[in-house]
């Protein structure tokens, strides 16, 4: 099932436009613009999926001590913050660095949540370098089957 989350068309530009539109639609369903704080990209990379019952946020943050990750929700903004210490500061003098692509330092990413979520039921798990945050939708927002009498 995760494949559908990861397998996107390779035509990135048109796809990116489409996703932006979808994101606008998802977060802006009530006529509210997407949060200005939620636009930036950076570390960790984030994927978001939705189910009728929850919003699932996957933050790709490898090599982090899970106890030092901070996840918080404030006024509809989900914040993921933490720090990945630089390893190069520990290395000895007689070294040559050929590649230094991995992120180091402190990070913070903010995801704007839709209005129908229940922040008290948020669960977060860290596994294989991915932080998965499940934000349940509030009871009232979940689809219900209406019985016809």
């Amino acid at each position, binding site marked *: 099932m995760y494949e559908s989350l990861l397998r996107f068309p390779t035509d990135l530009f048109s796809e990116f436009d489409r*996703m932006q539109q979808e994101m606008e639609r998802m977060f802006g369903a009530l006529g509210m613009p997407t949060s200005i704080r939620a636009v930036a990209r950076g570390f960790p990379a*984030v994927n978001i999926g939705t189910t009728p019952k929850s919003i699932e946020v996957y933050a790709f943050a490898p090599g982090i001590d899970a106890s030092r990750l901070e996840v918080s929700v404030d006024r509809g903004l989900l914040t993921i913050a933490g720090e990945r210490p630089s390893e190069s500061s520990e290395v000895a003098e007689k070294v040559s660095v050929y590649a230094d*692509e*991995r992120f180091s330092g402190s990070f913070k990413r903010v995801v704007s949540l839709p209005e129908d979520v229940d922040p008290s039921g948020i669960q977060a798990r860290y596994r294989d370098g991915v932080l998965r945050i499940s934000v349940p939708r509030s009871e009232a927002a979940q689809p219900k089957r209406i019985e016809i009498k």
Partner: protein
Amino acid sequence: MSDGKQDIARREDVRPAPALLPAVDIVEDETGITLTADMPGVPKEKLTVRMDGQNLSIEGEIALETPEGMEPSYAEIRSPAYRRSFSLSRDLDPSKIDAQFKDGVLRLRIPKAEHAQPRKITVSVD
């Protein structure tokens, strides 16, 4: 994907995305090279480190736990796999590579071959 019909429908408009290039740090010291690669979302059993001649390749498949019926709504990671390869120079000893993988970070230690290790030459004074 359990639903075969849906799979076929998807294949028409969705070509498989190319593998992601994992971010790496490569540091050389006197006794060898340390390569660190970020491959978040890859469980240990889906990681492959291979030596083919002088070519070192690292590959990993992303496996995320997803609830049933989840629809993607936004994605920055858009491929299910990581892949990257490197050619090693002859002064490195591929038979002695040590690999560790934890929390989505792969650490490879590739020691230099015996003959390439730095040697201190004692200068004798007559």
